[in-house]
């Protein structure tokens, strides 16, 4: 980006500056540390200059927003036209309580929904199964049958709202679709995202109802189905977030999310689909952790790397296929139980990084999530954090304001290169599914997690209120902590039993039988899943049908890998 003679002049002047200005100061006032690094371990120099980005070509590497390789964002006007979607993860107690909270957040200015389910629902167990006792509605909302979805979405216009569903496979999505059908909302009007990235679930939260390969195939069925029938829906979101929460570095987060996306892309192409038919609807979800610039650069690097992979590796020709569109969640694992109000400040910095990195959608954590599901007050404060960034700070007025920063461009390059290197290793191992089955991905993450905690222990990484500036009386938590009344669980169990008692058993059995046959024959199971759901099949009915057809999966980890 600079002429040779300019660079020579800059280098000469820099050497002179070092001798005459820097060195005398360094002798009198040495720097705080011998070396500075990002949270993920990238060396950070004292200062960056045009020399650091001398090999960059503006059009090739940075370019314009909405223009290949999309380093500066996927939309030409950035946030000047439309701000990012503000959607807070919501899910608590019962479908009824969750519906109330969703409506509250819409009244408070939330612009999209983001529904999280309890552990039983995530694992396809019904609330009335004794194995779920104590966990119903505790970490999200239970959604066992179409009835629960009807209650969750009661009074919310499905043709207008964009809904993120944090679930995998066709099960809960089918309930959403069946509800739309019941209400007469055409599928063409539905907007939203299903998480559906079975690969990330497998090694971060160890969720596997069937084997990894079966789960992978079934989630790809959903992508295929939605491309034909639900055109504006994002049928999968590759989850870097969970990988980072499990302790990975920033570059690993990018590489494993993109590695998963590559795996699904190859699977869908092998089914005879054209990459340009589905790639425009692939979406991503990333974390934003504490290291401000590293996170911004990570997001810029991910966008560029994905554009290049889509264009060069998969030969996608539709420019929409090159776009990496993503949701960000601020880092849950960065929240501290000590001095919990500090979490508001951490979340603000992380959310700002997400915005400066060009997030298309954002969830900000509530200060109390280190203890429990968010209280209404804490959730509102988290939403206000986004609104202050959007409407008061002015950062949304110009597109990618940090472009051209010598440091930002250099770090963007370094993270892209490191992530690309990891993707090459995944390829060498035979792709993401094989790399997971071999345990390689898991080991890499645990190694990074151990390293992070080693640095926390030695103080190389500072956590205010924990390993620095700690107080003795942290036991006094000055915030409200939400407690879920156990009566909600009893109510939900009763509701599920009532639904089950009132079903047309014959219709239900037929639908489940068809689902089983489709699963066993490796046919796309979404249509039969839809039929089952309409007959009020429960999650567990479908879980059993799948396991009868395919066998049960096993947890990805049953041993220590430290």
């Amino acid at each position, binding site marked *: 980006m600079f002429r040779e003679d300019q660079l020579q002049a800059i280098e000469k002047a820099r050497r002179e500056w070092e001798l005459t200005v820097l060195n005398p100061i360094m002798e009198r006032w040495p720097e705080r540390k011998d070396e500075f690094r990002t949270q993920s371990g990238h060396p950070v120099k004292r200062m960056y200059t045009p020399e650091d980005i001398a090999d960059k070509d503006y059009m090739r590497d940075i370019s314009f927003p909405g223009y290949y390789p999309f380093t500066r964002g996927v939309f030409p006007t950035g946030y000047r036209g439309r701000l990012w979607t503000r959607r807070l993860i919501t899910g608590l107690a019962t479908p009824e309580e969750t519906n109330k909270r969703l409506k509250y957040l819409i009244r408070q200015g939330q612009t999209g929904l983001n529904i999280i389910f309890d552990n039983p629902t995530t694992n396809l167990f019904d609330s009335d199964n004794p194995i779920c006792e104590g*966990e119903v509605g505790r970490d999200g909302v239970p959604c066992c049958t179409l009835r629960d979805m009807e209650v969750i979405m009661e009074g919310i216009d499905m043709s207008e709202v964009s809904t993120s569903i944090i679930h995998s496979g066709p099960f809960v999505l089918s309930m959403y679709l069946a509800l739309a059908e019941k209400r007469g909302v055409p599928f063409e009007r539905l907007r939203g995202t299903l998480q559906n990235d079975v690969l990330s679930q497998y090694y*971060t939260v160890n969720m596997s109802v069937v084997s990894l390969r079966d789960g992978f195939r079934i989630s790809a069925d959903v992508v295929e189905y939605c491309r034909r029938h639900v055109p504006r829906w994002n049928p999968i979101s590759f989850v870097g977030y969970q990988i980072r929460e499990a302790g990975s570095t920033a570059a690993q987060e990018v590489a494993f999310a993109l590695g998963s996306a590559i795996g699904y892309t190859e699977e869908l192409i092998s089914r005879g689909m054209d990459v340009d038919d589905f790639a425009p609807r692939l979406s991503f979800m990333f974390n934003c952790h504490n290291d401000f610039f590293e996170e911004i650069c990570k997001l810029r690097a991910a966008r560029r790397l994905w554009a290049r992979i889509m264009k060069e590796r998969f030969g996608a020709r539709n420019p929409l296929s090159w776009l990496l569109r993503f949701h960000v969640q601020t880092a849950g694992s960065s929240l501290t139980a000590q001095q919990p109000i500090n979490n508001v400040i951490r979340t603000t910095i992380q959310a700002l990084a997400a915005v400066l990195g060009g997030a298309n959608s954002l969830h900000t954590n509530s200060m109390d999530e280190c203890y429990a599901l968010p209280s209404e007050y804490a959730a509102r404060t988290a939403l206000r954090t986004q609104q202050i960034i959007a409407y008061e700070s002015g950062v949304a007025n110009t597109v990618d304001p940090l472009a051209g920063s010598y440091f930002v461009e250099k770090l963007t390059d370094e993270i892209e290169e490191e992530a690309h290197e990891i993707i090459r290793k995944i390829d060498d191992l035979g792709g993401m599914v094989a790399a997971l089955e071999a345990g390689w991905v898991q080991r890499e993450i645990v190694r990074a997690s151990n390293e992070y905690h080693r640095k926390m222990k030695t103080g190389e990484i500072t956590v205010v209120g924990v390993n620095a500036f700690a107080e003795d009386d942290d036991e006094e938590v000055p915030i409200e902590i939400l407690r879920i009344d156990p009566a909600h669980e009893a109510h939900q169990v009763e509701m599920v039993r009532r639904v089950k008692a009132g079903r047309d058993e014959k219709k239900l059995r037929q639908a489940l039988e068809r689902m089983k046959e489709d699963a066993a024959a490796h046919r796309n199971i979404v249509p039969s899943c839809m039929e089952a759901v309409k007959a009020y099949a429960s999650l567990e009915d479908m879980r059993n049908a799948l396991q009868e057809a395919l066998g049960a999966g096993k947890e990805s980890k049953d041993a*220590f890998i430290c």
Partner: protein
Amino acid sequence: MAERRPVRVLLAKAGLDGHNRGIQLVGKALRDAGMEVVYGGLRITPPEVVEMSIQEDVDVVGISIFSGGLMTIVPKIYQAMQENEATRHIPLIVGGIVPPAEAEELKRMGIKGVFGPGSDLDEIVGFVRSLAGSRSS
């Protein structure tokens, strides 16, 4: 003093959630401190805790829970251990997402240690060692 075998600890996750970053870290810290860690895996049930504790002859049991179900799940495990002569005296500790009021409740119930978010690994190691020590003496 009699010859000392290494402290043996059973660690496991109970309930349906699978977040295992915490338990991996604790396991590594205990091993690095010279203890033997038996990993019971995910979704361990109360009878399984009892059975493994006996079979593996452990000195301490640690359960990790990141789910809001801990006030149902932990008491059941504690109860099962109490009801068995062979496990009644094995100290049970808990880690994970534990609100302060619940932590107090668990301690009152007889859970020896509760380590919520932000707990110090060295402190956990020291605590496990002291529990094991007081048991053998």
